[in-house]
């Protein structure tokens, strides 16, 4: 899901020139680093990690389209994987985020946000309730240090209040301990089913299970992703990760994909990139993510910034994140000024790219709530020229999740 983060290096270079775009300073490696190189990965430093932006066998556009038609593997090991165990783990974790984890079924995941006292979003993350005393959390790489502090400090203060919570244990996994890959696309489940002992037909969107993959035991398979397609995120003991990826690639419907395709896929799916589309200044209401604030938590109001957020839900926010498309001109990017029809500056684009699926430009950005209606015409100011855009419902490309049919 909306999980990988940092200001996207390649998008952020919008203001730069050809020379400065392709920064490749060394960063930390993942367990698949050598594998990426061997397979033609063009490595870049992404939020402090050496990751492939694409592979030599496919352009970003082709890789993007391949994912929408077949299946792609993304290395997302840079993200922070955390396990929380012990009595009161759920009660503790709810003090940090907006999800109703108590009400969540076992082996289910939910997208949520860490918030600050002003209601701003400190990170977005997926929390999985494995059972009443065991949570598995995946959060953004670029926010790793901050998130560790949020969870550790939060635990300290929780334990001061609740004596019987003294046995809660947090384990932060190092990138080189647990590999995390995403297998995404309409052919992902067929490809994975042939090499796992789990019955994927019973593993619905946002559900999780542990099984073997390519004869590697103890792989956690979660049915979620960041592309809008059906797919999985698979957490693998790092020393065996190459086996899993290599075995998946024996299927001709599966290819490796990099950060480039990942960004355009998530944009088409209308999913936020932390640091670009949401940050500490935007509230879930501003970001059109009110649905992440669980009904029950609006009543209990016991997460950071709850009063402000609940008040905003009632009264509405001043600004709102919207989708914007344009069918002519260059793609609006992070920082592009949004104009009203009569030429007034009303907001800013937070991310955008040409959509390989739709062959128009897709973007998201913030505008005043009163101007946020779908169908509203806007102007986009790019390098001094003005182009026409229109506020458009997201996702831009219909999502294709594996939900239970009632």
């Amino acid at each position, binding site marked *: 899901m909306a999980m990988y983060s940092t200001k996207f290096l390649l998008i952020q270079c919008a203001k730069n020139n050809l020379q400065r775009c392709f920064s490749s300073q060394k960063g930390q490696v993942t367990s698949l680093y050598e594998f990426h190189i061997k397979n033609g990965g063009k490595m870049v430093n992404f939020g402090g990690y050496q990751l492939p932006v694409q592979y030599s066998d496919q352009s970003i*556009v082709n890789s993007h389209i391949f994912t929408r038609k077949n299946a792609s593997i993304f290395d997302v090991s840079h993200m922070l994987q955390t396990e929380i165990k012990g009595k009161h783990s759920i009660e503790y974790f709810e003090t940090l985020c907006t999800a109703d984890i108590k009400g969540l079924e076992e082996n289910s995941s939910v997208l949520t946000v860490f918030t600050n006292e002003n209601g701003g979003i400190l990170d977005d993350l997926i929390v999985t309730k494995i059972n009443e005393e065991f949570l598995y959390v995946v959060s953004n790489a670029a926010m790793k240090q901050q998130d560790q502090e949020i969870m550790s400090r939060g635990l300290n203060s929780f334990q001061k209040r609740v004596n019987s919570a003294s046995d809660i244990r947090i384990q932060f996994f190092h990138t080189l301990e647990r590999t995390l890959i995403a297998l995404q696309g309409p052919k992902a489940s067929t490809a994975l089913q042939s090499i796992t002992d789990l019955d994927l037909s019973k593993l619905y969107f946002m559900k999780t299970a542990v099984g073997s993959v390519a004869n590697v035991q103890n792989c956690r398979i979660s049915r979620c992703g960041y592309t809008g397609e059906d797919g999985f995120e698979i957490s693998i003991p790092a020393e065996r990760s190459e086996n899993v990826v290599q075995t998946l690639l024996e299927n001709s419907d599966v290819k490796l994909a990099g950060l480039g395709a990942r960004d355009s896929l998530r944009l088409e799916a209308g999913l936020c990139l932390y640091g670009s589309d949401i940050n500490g200044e935007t509230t879930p209401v501003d970001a059109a993510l009110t649905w992440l604030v669980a009904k029950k938590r609006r009543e209990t109001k016991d997460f950071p910034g709850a009063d402000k957020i609940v008040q905003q839900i009632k009264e509405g926010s001043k600004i709102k994140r919207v989708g914007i498309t344009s069918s002519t001109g260059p793609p609006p990017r992070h920082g592009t000024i949004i104009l009203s029809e009569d030429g007034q500056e009303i907001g800013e684009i937070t991310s955008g790219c040409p959509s390989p699926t739709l062959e128009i430009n897709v973007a998201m950005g913030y505008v005043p709530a009163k101007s946020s209606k779908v169908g509203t015409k806007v102007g986009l100011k790019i390098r001094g020229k003005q182009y026409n855009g229109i506020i458009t419902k997201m996702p831009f490309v219909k999502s294709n999740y594996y939900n239970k049919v009632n």
Partner: protein
Amino acid sequence: MAVVPRIWCSFSKGVFHNNQFFTKSSNLKSFHTSLSVFSEKLFTAKHEWVQVDGKIGTVGISDYAQEALGDVVYAQLPDVGTVVKQKDECGALESVKAASEIYSPLSGKVVEKNVAVEETPSLINSSCYDKGWLFKLELTNETELSELMKEDKYKEFLKTEESH
């Protein structure tokens, strides 16, 4: 490269009986020519090239730049008549992953832009030294040419950290 490849192709096939150099977009890497009927391509540190024929300089981006940029989907080129100074920002190329500004390698007046590239930006990827040229300049200060890199120097430059 020191030739206009379009001319070079028809001219050279008979010589080499081998056209593999001319179908590859990376002919820069594999081939160095010393035919001096046409002037050499000169490169900037920002990965543009210019090839001068009399007072006219033809401008494009290097193979390294097109490959790094990826599929170009939109080309914003300077209009004919625009007067630019060396290193002025004068247009932009957009790919899925990024927007990159084009900087003029030399001072001059734009006398032609490549309309085919505006219509089919992928020409920049498939033929960055030939069909994917961007615009032509009537030069106003030829002494600026000395600030640009010849091909071998540019190739050395690409190996340095500075170029990335």
